[in-house]
């Protein structure tokens, strides 16, 4: 598997407060890396550094072999797509038009011819083809989330950054989103996904990067990082890790006080 994105000793200090320090991680083509950590650990800051929104104050990020800062915005838009946490559209554009906006970076390139197909495929994959004509502003939270995901998929980039893509979704659509992420990874893309549900991460990610107070405290295969002692320390709450009865995938549960039998 070839390396797609590499963060080397990345630090980010804002107003004298270090938000990130010495973050090291790599995403390869063909894998899903889950970014985990308690609230305030710096996941969103790290994601915006990896997306090129925010310049790190220390270290650097390389995307496809080149420093992130060396790309022009239009080039970057053909290499990475980011699904934001919140989905707002200022004017009542139809959902289909919103998805089509994802194709903007390809306008004027030889691949602009694939626009129709890419939009149709993305909307079919996210189960929102039937919403195409509806104004985005009139959609429910879950529908918006799927249309926004379709826009990112239509952008058709080697690197996908998903910021809590399952937050507004019901069980079926949560699984749908992570299955799509898996398909993309199998097609040779790299996926970074921020999740809060550790069991969901355990079931779908290849590797996990665990952040605590702006530092990567562990980066590695799912089974190794999801260690009860490590998680209990990072989340400041006792945690149990069980094995699923079928297949043995880790199930992470917070320890709860039990009522007497």
């Amino acid at each position, binding site marked *: 598997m070839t390396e797609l994105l590499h963060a080397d000793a990345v630090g980010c200090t804002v107003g004298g407060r270090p938000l990130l320090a010495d973050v090291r991680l790599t995403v390869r083509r063909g894998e899903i890396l889950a970014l985990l950590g308690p609230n305030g650990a710096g996941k969103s800051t790290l994601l915006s550094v990896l997306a090129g929104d925010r310049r790190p104050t220390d270290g650097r990020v390389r995307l496809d072999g080149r420093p992130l800062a060396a790309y022009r915005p239009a080039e970057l838009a053909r290499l990475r797509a980011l699904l*934001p946490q919140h989905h*707002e559209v200022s*004017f*009542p554009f*139809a959902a*289909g038009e919103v998805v089509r906006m994802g194709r903007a970076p390809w306008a004027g390139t030889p691949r602009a011819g694939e626009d129709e197909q890419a939009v149709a495929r993305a909307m079919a994959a996210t189960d929102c083809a039937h919403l195409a*004509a*509806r104004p985005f502003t*009139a959609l429910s939270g879950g529908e918006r989330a799927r249309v926004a995901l379709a826009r990112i998929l239509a952008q058709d980039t080697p690197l996908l950054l998903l910021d809590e893509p399952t937050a507004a979704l019901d069980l079926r659509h949560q699984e749908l989103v992570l299955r799509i992420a898996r398909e993309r990874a199998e097609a040779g893309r790299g996926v970074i996904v921020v999740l809060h549900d550790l069991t969901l991460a355990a079931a779908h990610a290849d590797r996990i990067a665990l952040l605590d107070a702006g530092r990567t405290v562990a980066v590695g295969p799912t089974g190794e990082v999801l260690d009860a002692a490590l998680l209990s320390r990072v989340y400041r709450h006792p945690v149990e890790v069980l094995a699923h009865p079928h297949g043995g995938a880790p199930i992470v549960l917070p320890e709860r006080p039990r009522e007497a039998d």
Partner: protein
Amino acid sequence: MTTTVVKPEEASTGKTGKAVRDRRPLLLAALGIALLACALLAAGTGAYRIPLGDILASLAHRAHLGGHPLERVPESVLWNVRLPRVVLALLVGGALGCAGALMQGVFGNPLAEPAVIGVSSGGAVGAVACIVLGLDALGSWTVTAAAFASGLLTVGAVYAMSRSGGRTEVVTLLLTGVAVNAFCGALIGLLLFTADTAAISQVTFWQLGSLSQASWSKVLAVLPFAALGLAVAPRYARRLDLLALGERPARHLGVDVERMRIVLITVVALLTAAAVAVSGIIGFVGLVVPHLLRMLAGPGHRFLLPASAVGGALVLVAGDLAARTLAAPAELPLGVLTALIGSPFFFWLLRRTRRRQGGWA
């Protein structure tokens, strides 16, 4: 919980979206034809009536396409009084309509209008200062030039003050605009406080907005700014669509948001300052016209920008015709008329949008 009803078969094939898209060229053509008809009507209507046939003959004659010149009086009325006024209304309306659509797009907010970044009140300070202090360095052009310059200067100041670290936050920009508008209002008040009665009445009339001082030289003064703005704006239509997703998503799609904002705010400032300089303050055109068009044909800027320019021109040509004929021989101030009709209309729009979408969108 949505209130928009879409039949399943329409939704699956996207027919509704297509119907709206197909309507766009038709709507643009209809607006263009209405504008032309309204302009011809305005050219013929007034204390001295000129029949349509004569107008066309005279126009054709001047364009060396046959036709014939009119008698001395109608020819003079048409070419020295009516046409400069109609053309000026067309340019000012086009500039205001286009500037309004750009502002709403740049700020991703349907309530934005050029006045919020200080261009109108800044222009007013310049004009009022000239009138009250009796400045006439540029002869009869002094007020116009001062309004234009101070309008641009004010926008520049608002923009410079709201920047920090190479970025501009929209909320900061809007709040800076609010503060600067209040400051300009205070300056105007201070100037009026020191003014004599004649100056006060002149200021009042200037602020009400009117095209009664139209002339070919004013048309020529506005033309380059209107042409520049109307030429640059459509080049940003696609990027403005992307900006509706928010600044960060637009950047992720390759848009240089900060640069685009500087260019477009400059364009808005030029368009509005030029309009304010020759006509005073004419409100609500830039706010209501893009709104109405968005409701009719969707929010895509490739349609919205040119249509708002044509629609703004239509509203102003029709408005100016009404302003000078409704109470003839007296003339209503155009700015008063547009606000008088525009504000209840805007209120109706607000109510309607709320009913339909359960909130502003």
